[in-house]
């Protein structure tokens, strides 16, 4: 029976691959990554320096994969990994990193630091050092199918209410539909207007779509937590329902990490290609626009800006689509000073939003977004991630900026259909 420390160390050892080797071999400790990190810049605490958050993995790599490290270890000169190496890093990694990858964009030697932090999470999770909120979310996702504890009954109730309220038809479990739309739980309980918007848009574009009652959740707590086993189980559920419904394309919802996880990381986590295509909802909407199937009318004249969700823009590559969609009807669209692939995170990505302990720090680092918004003087903030949307709303409320309305792009677009 291994101890938590042994499990953590063994898991970290298994994470070392060619990229980890090249990354740690090229790090000069220049500290440039800190200058791109909202947690360091807003807290001023050097421990939030992105590369410092990878220290447990670097230590394992150094001791086990380098000549000097091995020699030092063999004569007892190296510092062995201790339980505090893992426990002390839990707060840095889970509270003080939203996996936004901004550090990866600026590293002079090209280290994808978010990739390393994701691996550190695997070690911490294996040793049991995971924040309670994220641990509980993972358990709910596994047992009930949703990190917020929603079930098939919750979905059916929500849909029934939406159909009555908005007078739309929301298809469920339609075999052979062109598109299967996955959801995040927040889109069922907090932002259900997204589902109504989907119905209006697909109806206008005359394309077939469906939701799945058996498994509707696109978010993956396994990835946020650093638990590959859980990540695989949740991904398998998505693949299963998509395959059973015989859809050609699965649409990732307005959720950042769900998109990156399912579209880019999923096949690699599962170790096989999908038998279907995966698109973000904005990619589909922009494709429909380009094909002439999505026509808008009227204009939105209030001053608005777009918040790029990190996993959709920087780590997902969906950069032009939201702007092309907004430019159809938004007459007063202005960009933040740092946007697109160099946007500033809302502060709640990577599972931080599920971690109640991290809330004071999260609200503190929101100051960067606050300053960006103050400089623009906008009345509307559009985004395409329900998690970002919640974080933005909470940040604005915390800073008494409720005069700025936060809205999802899909919903705004549905309001301007021809």
């Amino acid at each position, binding site marked *: 029976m291994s101890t938590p420390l042994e499990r953590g160390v063994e898991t970290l050892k298994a994470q*070392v*691959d*060619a*990229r980890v*080797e*090249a*990354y740690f*071999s*090229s*790090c*000069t*400790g*220049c*500290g*440039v990554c*800190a*200058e*791109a990190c909202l947690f*360091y810049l807003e807290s001023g605490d*050097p*421990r939030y*320096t992105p*590369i*410092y958050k990878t220290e447990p993995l670097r230590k394992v790599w150094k001791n086990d*994969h*380098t*000549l*000097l490290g091995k020699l030092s270890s063999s004569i007892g000169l190296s510092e062995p990994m201790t339980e505090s190496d893992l426990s002390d890093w839990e707060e840095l990694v889970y509270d003080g990193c939203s996996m936004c990858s901004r550090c*990866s*964009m*600026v*590293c*002079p*030697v*090209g*280290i*994808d630091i978010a*990739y390393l932090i994701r691996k550190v999470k695997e070690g911490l999770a294996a040793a049991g050092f995971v924040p309670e909120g994220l641990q509980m979310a993972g358990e709910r996702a596994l047992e009930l199918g949703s990190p917020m504890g929603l079930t098939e009954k919750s979905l059916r109730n929500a849909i029934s209410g939406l159909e009555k309220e908005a007078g739309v038809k929301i298809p469920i479990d339609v075999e052979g539909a062109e598109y299967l739309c996955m959801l995040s739980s927040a889109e069922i309980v907090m932002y259900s207007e997204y589902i109504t918007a989907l119905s209006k848009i697909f109806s206008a574009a005359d394309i077939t779509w469906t939701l799945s009652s058996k498994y509707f959740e696109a978010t993956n707590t396994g990835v946020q937590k650093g638990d590959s086993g859980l990540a695989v189980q949740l991904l398998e559920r998505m693949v299963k329902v998509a395959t059973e419904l015989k859809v050609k394309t699965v649409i990732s919802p307005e959720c950042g990490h769900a998109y990156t996880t399912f*579209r*880019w*990381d*999923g*096949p*690699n986590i*599962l*170790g*096989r*290609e999908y038998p279907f*295509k*995966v698109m973000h909802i904005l990619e589909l909407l922009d494709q429909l626009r380009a094909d002439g199937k999505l026509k808008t009318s009227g204009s939105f004249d209030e001053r608005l800006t777009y918040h790029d969700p990190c996993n959709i*823009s*920087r*780590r*997902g*590559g969906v*950069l032009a689509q939201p702007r092309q969609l907004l430019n159809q009807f938004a007459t007063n669209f202005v960009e933040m000073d*740092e946007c697109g*692939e*160099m946007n500033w995170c809302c502060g709640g990505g990577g599972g931080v939003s599920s971690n109640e302990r991290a809330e004071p720090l999260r609200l503190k680092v929101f100051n960067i977004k606050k300053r960006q918004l103050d400089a623009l003087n906008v009345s509307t903030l559009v985004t395409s991630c329900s998690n970002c949307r919640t974080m933005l709303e909470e940040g604005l409320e915390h800073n008494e900026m409720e005069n700025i309305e936060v809205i999802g792009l899909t919903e705004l677009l549905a309001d301007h259909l021809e």
Partner: protein
Amino acid sequence: MFEQLVDGILWDIALVIFFVGILWRIIDVLRRGTRRDLSVPRNSGVPGAIMANIRGFFPRREIAPRVRMKVIAGYMFHLGLLILLFFAAPHVKFIAEHITGFSWAAMPYWAFIVTAQVAFAGLILLWIHRLLHPVTRLISRRDDHVGAILVFLVMLTGCMALAEISSELRVFHRFTVELLMIYFPFSALMHAIMFVPSRAYSGATFGRRGVNL
């Protein structure tokens, strides 16, 4: 005796360790391999890998003002060192006699002095920053300091040897070079080579997704 050792066997040992060590480190990365990325790419990863290697030489506009000193000092040191390595007259002569068999134009003495001063200033600035800034102080390892001290000694003894006042100074310079060559493959100095695969891996990952690293 010491001169014979430095010009003879120690040089041979240093040369072998330097090249074999570097080759071993590169093979160590490559042998681990990377799994084929099974996600359907938006773009090819190859241009991303190449462009990341080029773009990495320039700081992003969004961050440039915050890292100006590091970038300027970094370029002063690295470019200065490269110029000294390949264009200082004694180095040109040494490389022609021991390695290539042919030579090229060396820089004049005054240019050597200017370049050396620029490189020294860059190295010292970076080192002071490493010691004083809370971030770099926290993340710097013993290895980073040893590497910086060795490079500093190599440059210092090189400047002293240039005057060719005594043979001892040249021998001492060569000795510090040999120490650096032996240390290089096992240290953070390997960043001088490993930045290429590092940028390539990340550039390809982001490039496949349609993002310019």
